[in-house]
């Protein structure tokens, strides 16, 4: 994409271990501004762990990560102003309606009048296709809607970088494809960089500009590049097997 600008994210030899158990090591890549970058790999390989490092919830045991030009450990507060996060479970606040969920960051970080906050939150929910559901509680909506609402909440303050952890996991293929379309649509309307964790092959081909593949056995990354290139020319057996699943 816009190769000229500064990279949105730089991951430099990041590693994580929990009490001596190494999850991954030597993970390095750069996410360009405006790009849709996918982190992929089998479950348990450390995708969410890597994501947690990038959003400053987990301090990397090795290496260094910068997001929006800020070091995620030293300048975590600055990083948090640059990012919106959709967690794997959605993590909506159960006691609040969808509108109130999206309004919360606006309540906390702006002095907008209540009416303006509601108006902005409503627009964000409309943008993800939930215009009719604004007054429902998280317990009253489906899994796909919860992920959409969580995306709307992540967008509340229009952050330049969005992190989405498994937006289509656990959903039926049709709903999952709908979320892929939403991501493409948001990407077309907003000036945003997307980091998306997923293990769905279809999603990767639908949305990814580039991707990094983690592997549990290798305890690190085994591929980095555009999905088509990886499918056609990777020599790593796991990568080949993953990208050519449909062909077999």
């Amino acid at each position, binding site marked *: 994409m816009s190769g000229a600008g500064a990279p949105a994210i730089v991951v430099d030899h990041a590693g994580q271990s929990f009490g001596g158990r190494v999850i991954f090591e030597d993970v390095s890549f750069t996410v360009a501004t405006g790009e849709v970058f996918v982190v992929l790999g089998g479950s348990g390989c450390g995708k969410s762990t890597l994501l947690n490092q990038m*959003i*400053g*919830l987990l301090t990397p045991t090795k290496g260094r990560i910068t997001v929006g030009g800020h070091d995620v450990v030293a300048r975590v*507060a600055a990083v*948090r*102003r640059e*990012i919106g*996060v959709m*967690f*794997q*479970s959605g*993590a*909506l*606040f*159960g006691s609040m*309606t969808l*509108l*109130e969920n999206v*309004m*919360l*960051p*606006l*309540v*906390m*970080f*702006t*002095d*907008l*009048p*209540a*009416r*303006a906050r*509601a*108006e*902005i939150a*409503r*627009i*964000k929910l*409309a*943008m993800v*296709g939930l*215009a*009719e559901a*604004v*007054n429902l509680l998280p317990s009253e909506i489906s899994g796909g809607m919860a992920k959409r609402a969580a995306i709307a*909440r992540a*967008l*509340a*303050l*229009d952050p330049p970088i969005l992190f989405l952890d498994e937006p289509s996991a656990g959903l039926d293929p049709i709903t999952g494809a709908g979320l892929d379309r939403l991501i493409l*649509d948001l990407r077309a*309307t*907003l*000036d945003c960089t997307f980091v998306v964790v997923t293990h769905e092959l279809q999603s990767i081909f639908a949305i990814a500009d580039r991707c990094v593949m983690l592997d549990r056995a290798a305890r690190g990354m085994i591929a980095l590049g555009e999905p088509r290139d990886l499918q056609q020319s990777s020599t790593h057996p796991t990568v080949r097997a993953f990208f050519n699943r449909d062909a077999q």
Partner: protein
Amino acid sequence: MTAVRLEVSNEGGGTVISLAGPLTATALAPVWTRAVDAARRAGDGLAIDVAGAELVDTSGAALLLALERDHPGRIEWRGLGEKPTQLMARLRAAVPNGVTAKVPARTVTRTSVWQTFLIRVTFFGETILATLSLPGKLRFLRGGNFFRLVERAGTQAMPLVGMMGFLIGMILAFQSAIPMRQFGADIYVAALVSLSLFRELGPLLGAVILAGRTGSAFAAELGTMVVNEEVAALTTMGIDAETMLVIPRMAAAMVVMPALALGVDIAGVLGMGLVMMILGFPPSAILNQIQMATGPYDLLLGLFKAVVFGAAIGLIGCRAGLTAGGGPRAVGEAATSAVVGGIVVTILLDGLFAVIFYRLGL
């Protein structure tokens, strides 16, 4: 970040609203209401000039759409770039038949009551709070809902408090009347029971009820939030979860606890009075005994202890919840440790108070 500038001017009979600077959620606050009012009042021939807007994000587009909706006539857009035009078209399509921005009733009352309360608290409390680290984090209290917490921890506990207090008062009176009658001292039962209620049993029983009902609820609630990644979500939004979740709960427990203790006191005295009347003492004799044996500060001492117990139980409940681990058992374990921890700490504190009050001769 530079501020948004709003200018409303007249141009050949029509109104021109000019917006300059970054049109983003964090910057829009000072101009939103004025801009919407200007658009609403403007007659035919309104022009909106956004040539000076450096950046229009979705929140900025939300304002422009609100102007468009609230203005009765047509709008001439000036200097609206290609990107914002697209964004607005996209949002118009997403919002069914115009943007209907009705703040839901629940939010209106909750926010406004809470905010007026907050203004008062900040007004009186700013000087006190300045010594703590709170002022920088005060905004995070906006997400709490203190009154709902007070209602659940206090008002809804009152029937249980009344029943327990009444029964304990009756049982104590009855059990002590039997041996004391042998010495012809059974009238002193009124003094004995009311003194122990005011100084000890009121706060203690209230604390047990608070730990069982509310401490466990705090732990379960916050524990569920941890397990559902809601606390992580707050943290990544830059919201101080401790301030937003713990302080209102602790404050609610501290406010509610003296009321619970007082409830036990009153119900207990009534229960004791009933037994004494059954045993044949007239109400005036019972009241007389209570007055002679207890002073206002026995009551106040008990209520003071209650506030401290409330703080401890609230804090322990929240701690237990926020430190919940993963897995299906985490929430249950958090609730258990909140109740056990709350009761144990209450009794330890009570012992400490006994020593301190004895030393001070209270």
